[in-house]
């Protein structure tokens, strides 16, 4: 099993979710994060003083998937999240050793 961490642009969430649902992904966990990267932040101003906001709002998806499904899912995310403009985000794949469904205690693939 793998954990896919996907950092995407906030307004793409709906689209990505739909794309994933379509190919059968049934679970994911989402958080609001701030990203720092090549996409530069902007200058804000407050009571006459300027300051730079380096961090931009992003959405982080965490999806644990079966190894077989990995590539399909990565593709789906890339396709649905891409705008081609800087700041589109990243995908990171991390090994998962075990997973448990709390409700039933089921483990492994069954738990996803």
């Amino acid at each position, binding site marked *: 099993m793998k954990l896919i961490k996907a950092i995407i642009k906030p307004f793409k969430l709906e689209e990505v979710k739909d794309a994933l649902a379509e190919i059968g992904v049934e679970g994911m966990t989402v958080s609001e994060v701030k990203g720092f990267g090549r996409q530069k932040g902007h200058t804000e101003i*407050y009571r*006459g*003083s300027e300051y730079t906001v380096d961090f931009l709002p992003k959405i982080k998806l965490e999806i644990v998937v079966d190894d077989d499904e990995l590539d399909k899912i990565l593709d789906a995310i890339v396709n649905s999240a891409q705008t081609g403009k800087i700041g589109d985000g990243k995908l990171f794949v991390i090994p998962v050793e075990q997973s448990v469904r709390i409700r039933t205690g089921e483990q492994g693939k069954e738990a996803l």
Partner: protein
Amino acid sequence: MKLHIRKSLSNRHSLWKLLLLASSLFIFSSASLWSQDNASAASEPSAPVETYGSFKESEGYATFATDNLWILLAAFLVFIMHLGFATLESGLCQKKNTVNILFKNCFIISMGVISYYAIGFNTHYPGDFNGFFKLGGPLTDAFTDSVNDDGLTHSFANLTSEYADYTYWSDFLFQAMFAATAATIVSGAVAERVKLSAFLVHATALVAIGYTVAGSWHWGGGFLTTLGDALDADGNVIAAAALEAGAEADSYSNAFYDFAGSTVVHAFGGFAALAFVMVLGPRKGKYTESGIKPIVGHSMPLAAIGVFLLFLGWFGFNGGSVLSADSELISRVCVTTALAACAGALASMLVSTLVIKKPDLSMALNGFLAGLVGITAGADAISPAMSIVTGAISGAIVVFSIIAFDKAKIDDPVGAISVHGICGIWGTLAVAFFGGASLTGQIIGIVCVSLFAFVFSYALALILKSTIGVRVSEDEEERGLDISEHGQEAYSS
């Protein structure tokens, strides 16, 4: 003009000196360019009334009742300014200090009203004093006697036009609400790092003593009132004795004119704030080696609610300072107040767009207040057209002033020093430029009051610093005063 002196005269055994002062004041006010006394004249029946009941049936009562109602309504409007201050200050500060700010504002209004009862009113309008200082006692006799109005001792005069165009009680309520604003001004400037206990002591002394003493100089018959010496046609001062004997004045020298308190309330509060801020130092992390790091306010809607409520309340602040519901005066004062506020906001919007290159909301909000503070001294004396100019200049000044204080590392989270202090000065000067007041008189008034406020507040802050301390620890500042001082958070889910 706040002719509170009338009260002092009718209520107390006045000494010679005061009588003289009063008679010169009387003449002065009759001939005054900005005479606001028509109302009282009309509503003061010539034949003395015997009881409150018969007063109510007298001709003048209907007008008196309207006047009195307006003063009460004005008091309510000034009261709502305290909510305005509380929300504006909260909005412009960080989330983690919100409980602290709200608590301070709750304290200020309650302490303000109670202390004004206990000591402030009689300090503010002392019956007999040296023109500089008298500490008043609590309100007692006349204030509470009249509870039973049938039989017993009943100082009914305080309830009729023999006292003023409103009852003693309305007078108290309006002035009490007014008084508490001085401390509120300071509250915003010292926010986010001041120690709660130190602030409470400072605010109490400032409202109960500092403000009322300074206020007595102008509105309580003190030395600023007497600045306006009577002059004869050749410009020589007419001796008091001659005035008494009936000599008529041709003009008046250097009268200090401050209608509703650009200096006496706002510059007072602003300079008291400046002093406290200087003792206190800036918030941690504001001025770094790499420049000014803005500490952004946590809620612009709260700030905007605050400013609109302050604008609303100002109709009572200025309009109520007419001290009657005189149709001409209150209407005009409300118009100049509104025009100056709106012009101030437009000017701030424009200037901040030009200077900062962005239409800055927080500057627009300060612009309203700048316009309001600016017109406060001359709301009755400056024409509507000139009130637009006064307000616009004020709105422009405030933008530069806020930026300048920031450059000088005077850290004022809400801009109180600029809005109240600097625009208060400007407003007082504006009466000389656009309202016919004496420039010298205005400058004397500004200097005396502002200096006093600064010194009083500075000394107080220093004493507090060397005793209980004025500033929370670095760690407390970081965690926020809400947790460190109150063990409470302002927001939760």
